């Protein structure tokens, strides 16, 4: 009924985009900004150090978090609490030789299995936190995470060798008895000996909790883990290149343009948009991550990191602007659309007036943070932001602690921020 009565008429909410092209190679960055929050920088790495691709820069104390590598030839211009800045320079012969000398590791040939594989992958720059979850069944979420993002189908249908390598590694790493690929129902695919389950493909169907429900028929069941296709692709990419991960796949999109690129870790949003020939004007909004769940950035020199799923330009005037304090007019649209069956109108009101405790009575921790409440709000209230505020005040970090949401955390909060 919901579909019939207009809520999500935008065709972009259909997550199958029919994009099949191979990923384009992104630009050679002239300047990168690498996220180093929590990392300890290697001895000898400091300002003015010359770096080359795949050069080891820093290590994170957490076992599940991959090491940091330089993504290109250049010189470190600054190291701050949060970032390492590198400016491109033409490589000298020495630098080229050093790059050549970086070891190759064929992770597919490794003997290790399960836990023992974690340090190997960490040393290749891979995050394993969400990959090696303790669960009986591991679901691979093969949907484009947000409307507008289009890399999932090429990953499934075009870059099949990378996918196969990634899945092989995943099977070795995970202790799950079953690994299930949750694939949009329109795509009839077979992947070796993996179990494929068709799932609905209209947003919010790609939200992890809803994928789990589509596959198992249950809401928040125990013993089920879920991992994003993006992570599996990274695993496969490392297996294929035999080099540490210094790249990521993102969709770059605007109103009239969309394309998928393999871009270097730390590339700045300004350079990426320019490369994709997306013209920026004053008053536009640059969105890192998906258009529904991402975050806006203030400057063109903010960067894309390994977990990012997309980079979007929302042209000024293409959506009604949010204007300051806008009271709820109780239109009920958000309640009608909420996939978690909550009352976003009440949640956002309580948060607005600082009544965070009352949000608990309204089951705030069931919120899937899909963002649809804000999408349909006719008063243009930042409903999701209010909910996140209340969650933060209440100390509920559903998206951070549960394995279910690990991917979302990586893309929307932790990693993407630098």
């Amino acid at each position, binding site marked *: *009924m919901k579909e019939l*009565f*207009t*809520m*999500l008429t*935008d065709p972009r909410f259909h997550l199958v985009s029919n994009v099949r092209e191979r990923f384009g190679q992104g630009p050679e960055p002239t*300047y990168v900004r690498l996220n180093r929050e929590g990392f300890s920088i290697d001895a000898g790495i400091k300002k003015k150090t010359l770096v080359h691709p795949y050069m080891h820069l820093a290590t994170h104390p957490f076992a599940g978090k991959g090491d940091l590598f330089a993504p290109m030839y250049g010189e470190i211009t600054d190291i701050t609490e949060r970032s390492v*800045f590198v400016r491109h320079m033409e490589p000298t012969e020495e630098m080229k030789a050093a790059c050549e000398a970086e070891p190759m590791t064929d992770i597919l040939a490794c003997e290790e299995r399960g836990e023992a594989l974690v340090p190997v992958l960490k040393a290749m720059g891979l995050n394993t936190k969400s990959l090696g979850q303790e669960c009986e069944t591991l679901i691979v979420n093969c949907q484009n995470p947000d*409307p507008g993002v289009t890399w999932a189908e090429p990953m499934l249908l075009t870059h099949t060798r990378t996918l196969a390598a990634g899945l092989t590694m995943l099977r070795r790493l995970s202790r799950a008895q079953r690994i299930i690929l949750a694939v949009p129902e329109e795509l009839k695919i077979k992947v070796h000996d993996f179990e494929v389950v068709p799932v609905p493909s209209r947003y919010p169907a790609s939200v992890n909790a809803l994928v789990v429900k589509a596959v198992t028929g249950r*809401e*928040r069941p125990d013993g089920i883990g879920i991992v994003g296709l993006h992570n599996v692709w990274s695993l496969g990419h490392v297996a294929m290149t035999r080099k540490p991960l210094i790249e990521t796949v993102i969709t770059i999109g605007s109103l009239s343009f969309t394309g998928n690129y393999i871009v270097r870790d730390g590339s700045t949003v*300004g350079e990426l948009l320019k490369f994709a020939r997306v013209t*920026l*004007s*004053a*008053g*536009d*909004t640059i*969105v890192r991550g998906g*258009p*529904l*769940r991402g*975050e*806006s*950035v*203030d*400057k*063109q*020199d903010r960067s894309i990191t390994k977990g990012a799923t997309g980079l*979007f330009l*929302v042209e*000024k005037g293409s*959506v*009604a*602007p*949010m204007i300051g304090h806008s*009271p*709820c*007019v*109780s*239109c*009920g*649209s958000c309640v*009608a659309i909420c*996939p*978690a*069956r*909550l*009352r976003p*109108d009440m949640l956002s009101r309580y948060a607005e007036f600082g009544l965070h405790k009352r949000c608990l009575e309204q089951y705030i921790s*069931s919120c899937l943070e899909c*963002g649809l409440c*804000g*999408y349909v709000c*006719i*008063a*243009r209230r*930042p409903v*999701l*932001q209010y909910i996140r505020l209340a969650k933060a005040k209440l100390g509920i970090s559903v998206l951070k602690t549960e394995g279910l949401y690990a991917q979302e955390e990586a893309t929307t909060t932790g990693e993407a921020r630098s």
Partner: protein
Amino acid sequence: MSAHTNSLLFAMSAPPYWHCGRTVCKRSMDQLLALAPAMVMALINWGLPALRVVALSVVVCVLVEVVCCAIMHRRQTVHDFSAVVTGVLFAFLLPAAAPWWLVVIGAACAMLFGKMLFGGLGDNPVSTPLIGWAILFVSFPLFMDPNVMQLASDYEDPLAVLKYLGVARAQEISLVDLLLGRQIAALGAGQIGGLLVGGVYLLFRGVIRWQIVLGMLAGVLIPFAFVHSLAETATITPTFHLFTGSVVLCAFFIATESNIAPTHSLAMILYGLTCGILVFLIRSYGSYTDGAPFAILVASLLTPYFDLVRPKPFGVR
């Protein structure tokens, strides 16, 4: 670094960055568009006096909103056109021959006590136009009775016919006449055909919820159909009740006002049914011939209780 930071300023905001495009103002426009067919029919059936009442009511509603926002030092909200919608809806509940002072008092009371004092659009627990209607109805019952006010008309009031002249006479009234608004009722409420067209439009635009509309229509139809099929003496068909008084106007345009209704599906159906059944009770046993506005006033006061009927949130066991 300077090469990468140029002077363009970007807009920062909160996710989501896409939006469905609907705004309060566009919703009002949809509502006005939906009321237009009934307005045209009212002009045909009642002539210029109908236009006079509607125009006056709209002007008063808009002025009250402007003045209240100014006095209360709130952001001006009049440009969302919701006051215009209220003005039209309120006028639709009045007889076409209503005197000017009646319109002014009613519209002003509606806006003041039915909206602005609660804090503006969406904060009122009872319907704005109905507040104005109720105040007038208890203060000036004679002036609010279309049957009394519309003496010069050739039409007849089907509900009065049914009540005072009996079923046999009422059965002679054709449904087509009712649909075309050839009946004595409030100036907009009687334009059944136009209201149905507009109401269905609102349904498909997602402005109103089908659960409420269906609930209310079923709430009226089912008990009357029940009585109709069981009664030993002759009774009027249930559709007669649907197309008379202000049932259609209320079901599509007033009961569906989202802030007075509950929000979850089942609760909305129950609320709609309650509205409908109250209409049945008032018409069968009460002294008012219509009853629909009162039914909604009462049902909307129960909304906090309907709201307790809610589905389990995601993953809650």
